[in-house]
């Protein structure tokens, strides 16, 4: 049992934390959100310089050989600062698909471009009918001379309109909801037949609906086995769940910190409101919820590389459930204990609440993961 960070991991944590404190202040973020793209290419370039964009990739592929713990450190810091750049879609989601599903040749071609910041990617997997079911894929891929042709619709593709290339899941065989017969394809966002409709999400980030009309994909851009891509996507989503569990911990920690500070400084009835025991107990409950979520984020992170897919999925559902419960509780309480000021866009705590509300439901809401876990049997023997 060891929860300590290594020397290198501590350095990473310090440098990311210092960089964000210096260059990602709340007011600066507000300007980024108001910009046309909704995120900052300059910040992206700084992330490349800091080595964050190549973090999870093998050195042989042009990366820096970090693991899930390194991703956790980065995402936790991003949660604190409410970073909106497309790190989750590019590095975590698409990055995981490349690591688990692409050929060595494809990785050597793409990873250096991610690492130096010149390639933004998105994972186009979810579909309008799918809710959170990962196998519910109706987009079709049919073989055509020298490659494949894709047709279908993808929904809520994170940063879909900013991505240079999309990783698209499509059915090469099998019926809808069949876990077999799903392939993964790398598609240029500007390819003929790709129609992207971008829009803001509730936390100030961006997503897109994307239509594919007979889009041609050359054979070299097929990622892995055309009939067996789902396990790769599921592994990527599991890594993303671990990543946003860590991001949520950062955001919850920030919300609790702001709340405790407010309780100490806001006076009503001639005393700091933090002297009211009713509010002290609420803050104590927030602290408990944060620590429970932190524990489960560790479980998610330490399970992210588990090759036993079923056990890994159980851990992720469990972590996602705790994350969602804590995120909702802490987000709501942070607003409540701030009173009116918590309700405004001019103050950071409301933005933390909004991001936490999205994390609560990203990659499956409480009911979805309770359903997964209930169907999978007991968690107790996994320890």
């Amino acid at each position, binding site marked *: 049992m060891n929860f300590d960070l290594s020397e290198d991991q501590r350095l990473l944590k310090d440098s990311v934390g210092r960089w964000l404190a210096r260059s990602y202040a709340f007011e600066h973020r507000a300007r980024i959100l108001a910009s046309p793209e909704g995120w900052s290419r300059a910040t992206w370039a700084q992330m490349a310089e800091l080595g964050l964009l190549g973090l999870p990739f093998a050195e042989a592929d042009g990366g820096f050989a970090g693991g899930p713990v390194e991703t956790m450190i980065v995402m936790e810091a991003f949660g604190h600062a409410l970073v909106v750049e497309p790190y989750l879609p590019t590095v975590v989601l698409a990055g995981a698909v490349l690591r688990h599903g692409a050929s060595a040749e494809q990785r050597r071609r793409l990873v250096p471009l991610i690492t130096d910041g010149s390639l933004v990617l998105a994972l186009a997997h979810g579909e309008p009918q799918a809710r959170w079911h990962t196998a519910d894929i109706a987009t079709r891929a049919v073989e055509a001379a020298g490659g494949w042709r894709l047709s279908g619709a993808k929904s809520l593709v994170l940063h879909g309109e900013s991505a240079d290339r999309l990783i698209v899941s499509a059915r090469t065989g099998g019926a809808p909801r069949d876990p077999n017969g799903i392939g993964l394809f790398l598609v240029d966002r500007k390819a003929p037949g790709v129609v992207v409709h971008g829009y803001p999400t509730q936390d100030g980030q961006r997503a897109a609906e994307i239509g594919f009309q007979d889009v041609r994909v050359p054979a070299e851009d097929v990622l892995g086995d055309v009939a067996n891509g789902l396990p790769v996507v599921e592994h990527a989503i599991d890594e993303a769940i671990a990543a946003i569990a860590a991001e949520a911990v950062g955001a919850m920690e920030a919300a609790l910190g702001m709340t405790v500070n407010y309780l100490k400084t806001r006076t009503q009835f001639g005393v700091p409101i933090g002297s009211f025991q009713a509010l002290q107990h609420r803050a104590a409950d927030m602290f408990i919820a944060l620590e429970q979520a932190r524990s489960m984020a560790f479980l998610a992170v330490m399970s992210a590389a588990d090759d036993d897919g079923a056990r890994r999925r159980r851990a992720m559902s469990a972590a996602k459930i705790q994350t969602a419960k804590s995120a909702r509780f802490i987000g709501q309480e942070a*607003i409540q204990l701030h009173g009116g000021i918590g309700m405004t866009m*001019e103050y950071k705590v409301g933005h933390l*609440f909004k991001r936490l*509300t999205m994390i609560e439901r990203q990659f499956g809401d409480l*009911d979805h993961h309770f359903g997964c876990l209930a169907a999978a049997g007991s968690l107790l023997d996994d320890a």
Partner: protein
Amino acid sequence: MDLRFTDEELAFRREVRAFLRESLPPEIHRKLAEGCRLGKADLVRWTCILHARGWAVPHWPVEWGGVDWDPVRQMIFRDEVQQFPAPETLSFGTSMVGPVIYTFGSDAQKRRFLPRIATLEDWWCQGFSEPGAGSDLAALKTRATRDGAQWVINGQKAWTTLAQHADWIFVLARTDGSARKQQGISFILIDMTSPGISVRPVQTIDGGFEVNEVFFDDVRVPLENLVGAENRGWDYAKFLLTNERSGQARIGLSKARLRRIRALASTPRNGAPVLIEDPVFRRKLAELEVEVRALELTQFRVIADERHKEQGRPNPASSILKIKGSELQQATTELLMDVLGPAGLVRHAESGPAAFDWARGGTSTYFNLRKLSIYGGSNEIQRTIIARAILGL
């Protein structure tokens, strides 16, 4: 003991519903049903329709446009309006300053202001809270000093809802700095076009503009705009806040939202299985329906009790209505988000894809209704009222 409505009451309910069906403009109905914001024009239009029917201010005294309904009918009316859903009239006028004016105001004030409140010719806003005076309202610092035939007002109000539309604001201002906190406060009516007033809109987390900061810089107000006696404003404010509190259960709104949830969860979309077939979801829906029903019966009891109590005395049980009513409204928005699923992540900007139109207003309502447990006397303050005034702790 009888929990049923009488035949006459049921007939009255049908009459109200029929009126709403015939008279509410469909565009306004649609906006409300989808949880979207109404514009000022919508509310003015609807208030005029209500006024033409004689129902704009049914709870007022008959001589000022009220209807002689007993408390049960008043409640049925509100419940039908909320469930339909139809807009409620602007509470700052009809439920806050109106009753203060007809209870404590001068005859001249009654004649001047009440008719224009009933028709929404005057849009009123509530200038109570300040940056340093929220739960501790009596800590307010805005000053009114006498200068000849005028009050001179200086200070700042915070969180003033819809002040951007307002013609008038009622404020609590300190008229005697030497008295005990609650005792040097007066209740003053101020024309929003007076020189020296500025309004700064503040965006809320749902993205809307509903609250404002209102600044007073040497604003001159005729002495006659004082309501009641100088330095007695706190009593009028307490009267007003108690009325506000009991109106906040808004059970009809929770019922309407639960109906919308059931309808959305039963509608097939993109060929996906409908949520209503999921027993876990149905259980959650049932759970909220039970809570709503319990609160509705509690509200009936509070109303029945009012008949035995002396008029105008605050009933501390109204704190139950405020706490549970706000919590249930918030809980129904959480369940609504469960129905929306991934579509709830979308923000509905002008450019948003039409595929998500059915989910419009869901998540932003969830964000917006966090306010319910903060304003109107926060739920923490209400719990303290129950502990002290009812339980004697």
